[in-house]
């Protein structure tokens, strides 16, 4: 059970739609003429103790999964990743884990920037309109939740 059944659903960090507007100026794109289609964020190889938090799965389920990894799964440390809107939830999960462990767990957070790709497809299917791609950045957080060494 430590392994997620389906990375397709569970490990895709969801970028919130709100971020699209804030990060990219809407000048270069006319919403009438183009449809915006977001590609998935780039995936990296995943270990068993990596948990990608998303906004679709129930919060309690994700928390339980982390707990299972730490207790039943026998991992000394896990990494909780969150992207965009899911940052909040990732932090929440990490803090919850720490609180329920009665101080046994420690946290170490890192932030990063992830480059995302959008496809712009022309509405008008003439030869003139060429599909465009653009990149935008989104924030991500990687929290290491671990049992400190006895020394």
């Amino acid at each position, binding site marked *: 059970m430590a392994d997620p059944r389906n990375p*397709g659903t569970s490990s895709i960090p969801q970028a919130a739609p709100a971020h699209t507007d804030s990060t990219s100026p809407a000048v270069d794109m006319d919403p009438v003429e183009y449809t915006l289609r977001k590609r998935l964020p*780039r995936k990296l*190889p995943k270990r068993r103790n990596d948990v990608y938090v998303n906004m679709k799965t129930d919060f309690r389920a994700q928390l339980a999964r982390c707990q299972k990894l730490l207790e039943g799964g026998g991992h000394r440390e896990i990494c909780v990743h969150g992207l965009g809107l899911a940052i909040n939830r990732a932090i929440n999960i990490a803090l919850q884990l720490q609180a329920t462990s009665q101080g046994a767990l420690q946290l170490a957070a890192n932030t990063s920037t992830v480059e995302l790709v959008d496809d712009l497809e022309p509405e008008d*299917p003439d030869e003139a309109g060429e599909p465009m791609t653009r990149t935008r950045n989104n924030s991500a957080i990687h929290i290491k939740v671990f049992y400190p060494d006895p020394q």
Partner: protein
Amino acid sequence: MRAKKLRDQPTSVMYPSSPVTVESSTQNGGDARDTGATGGDGATGGDDPSDVKLPVERQKNRHQRDGWVRGHQKDGAVYAKDMSKYISGGAFARARAAEVKTMLKAVNRTTGSCHVFGALPKHMRRRAMGHNVKRLPRRLRDVANRMHKKSLQAGSKKKKEQTKSKSRKARRRHGNLLLEFNRRQRKNIWLETHIWHAKRFHMVKKWGYCLGDRPTYKCYRPCYRAMSTHCLLQDLSYHCCIELQGEEDNMLACLSQLTSKEAGPTFAAALCILGRRQGSVVVYRAGLYPSQPLGPVTFLWRPRTQGSTHRQLWIWAHPSIKQDLLSELQGVCQCFEAVVPPVVPVVTPAEVVPSLEPELQSEKTPEATQTLRTKRKRNCKDSSEPPAKKILGDGTRSPTTPVTWRSSSTGIVINDLTMEIVRYRLIGPQAHSVLAETLEAASVCDEINKSQPSSLWWPEHCKDESKMNLHQQQADIFHILKDIYSTGELPSGTVLGLTVDDPRLTLPTKKVKALPCVKSTQDVDEERMKELVLRGVPDHCCQSFLWEQSVRDNVTDNKMSEQELNRMRSEVLVPGSRLSPTPLQGRVPILLVHQPGKQVGHEMTSWGAGWDLLLPKGWGMAFWIPLVYRGVRIGGLNMSLKHSQNKGTPHFPHDYPDCPAGVRFQEEQETELLDKFKRRPPAKRTNFVKHGCLAPFRCPWQQLAEEWELITKEGRVEEKRDDQTQTTTNTDTVMEEEMTSHLTVTKTQSCITVLRNRKSLKLLSGWCRPTTSKGQRSCRVGQVPPLSSSAVSLFLTEHGVSLVWVRLSLLAKGKPELHAMVCVPVPEDLKLLSKKSDSNCPQEPLHRNHFKSRIKRRNKGSKKAATSSSSTDKTEGKGSDLPSASVPKLTTSTEDPQSSSESSTDLIFGLWPDPLPSITSHCSRVSLGWVTQGDFSLSAGCGEALGFVSVAGLLNTLLNQPMEHRGMVLLRNPASLHYRFAKINIEV
């Protein structure tokens, strides 16, 4: 015993030219048994009731002047029509004589299958009596013994006749096996992987091909998992390819008649025409855009060559629309001059020409060797037999059928490349790593080989510097591909041309699962990878030699056989190591085409993305086995249906009810389902009449669309009349009356269309307020005009009688099934919804079965006919009269002729006979449409269905629904009374 024979006998009795219906034969059976039981005049009286009838009855029964209809006829009207006044004695006597003769024959003859113990009463029969004579009572043993011997003899005689064919060993000998295979391929085309599939799959014969439907082992979930985490492989070679060559402008002008810009990008879409992307369109009959679609096709342009406006286009279509498409293409391009096959005009760009000549010279060498080999074989066989040669490509087509058509006016050449190119589809995020592991860019020839002229295409190409440059670039891009983690990261529809080594050379000894190389992330050329991910493959790298017929033929002809390869392998010094100088024949041009994953909706984006692998014919198995050895799962037709279902895209013949192929498919499906239904005993069938399900096996779209159009009209009229009442809650009777008059008028033109206009679809989807599948997150909708009655009426004037394709996701419980009804919830239902409990679903009250009495009466009537034949006419007359009075007589009389003719002869228990009453208002909830595919969706985690609803109905519903419950509908399976809540999504 005698009675039994008589029961079976009358079916064989047939006076020539008289139609004997099934009805009459069963009746005769019934009365024959009765008379037999009484034991009186079994021979004559039991045979035909019309014989015993009074002379008056006889005259009544007479049907035509020359032919006699035996038994009682149900529809009494026939008698009255052409009653003749005379009985010609000769004909009558002859008829009776024939009957008596057959009867006597039947009585006298004992057939082989007739066993002695048939005479025993049931309680005295024992198990295995046929084998063990001692189980019979002693008085019957002698007879049984005799018959046993007789049957043994008969059996052995038959066996001897069978053994005339060769022994198994002979049959399995390679040459003979090949002959046998070739014979079996004449009717249905076999794919190159047929034998492989036939060993592992349930095969079906569809569209003129033998295709694997589903594996014999259980693998539904593993296949789904393969699609979403690893890779699923399918053989799509049965898709037909049609090649168009000509000037670009001419071709575009011709092709533009088949498509419309309203329905999305056409053949002229910017990236597609560069050859960088594969495009897909729905093709219509020329110039008839909103009506008469043919079906979806994908197309691929060959990248431009410098300084030439000559272009090449491949159109890939499903085999069920190929003929229509081909004739339509010939029509628009004016290509009617069929070119006789031997003189195949290869109109290729200038660069190929040099490579043609050496090829022609050296063609002799492989041929010569071949003749030598076949000669040896032929000596041992009889000389008359043609040498068995494996059929490559289309085996059903005679070699003289033209496959090429050219036009003198437009200069376009149409080429039918069916079965010329093998197409494999790899679905899943790891598809590219499977490809990267299986394929290796072709190794360049060394100097020695370059210097001497060769019959093979690769050494010739190696001499050309520019071609080698291109090859190097393509190989580089292919190398970068290995470092991508998921197939979905690439721009959808990307094309990459490549030349690869024979993948059999690098076949692993064991099946290993191909995984992405993890460690290489550090030393990846980040810049180039980003470029690839953002822009896709540059133009010139999309070029492949697969486009050239000469190269394709060369590669196919010079394929190294498995045997030869194994021999070379055995000669290698270190067993199991790679063949060091790669044999020159083993260079294959291929095309890799990226397939987009899920593009609509907001969850599971790019699920099910993958690659298509295009190969020259003959190389199918050479690539199939190495792919299989990389740990992919293999799916059949069944899985491709599930794939498109999860992707949220319509699947071709299933979800195109307005295309001819779709209509044909639905008819087939109906007969299949009906047969399955009829196979069960009536008591064990679902009683669809009681469930209020009018058409469980088909979807009368036409009737639905028309009814809804009428309802909206009615609504509008009423609105004008009285502003307070603005609903569709008009009394059924008015509506039905209107409908009957209306339907009879519009019946002549039967054309429903599926809404494919992009703008309208967007508008609709905005009105439905698309949310995610579970309704958690509503999403921004662009500037959609608010839903108002004026906007709706404007919309309906455009698309009144059309259907729209929707995705339905269930909110709580339930698994939608095929042909489940989509219904409109009443306000009380919506209140239930807010209570949030699973068990609270509205239910359909049980309907009354009007037909039960009718069926009973019919059964009774037939029995009565036997005993007192005079009274039958009366009863039957009543029987046919009564139900028509009780059933609302709402007719679409010529809905489909097949089933209506059936229903006139026999009522099927549990099914509503034709003509159907009003579909929309039959149940307690008004129905909008039907589901064409439904299942529990493993990707969404809830029941999901795809179906069609009437546009008019949908808009009407949306208008009347409160804002917070907009787009909420009810789904009800045909065999269930429970309605389940579902959410409508229209995705563009």
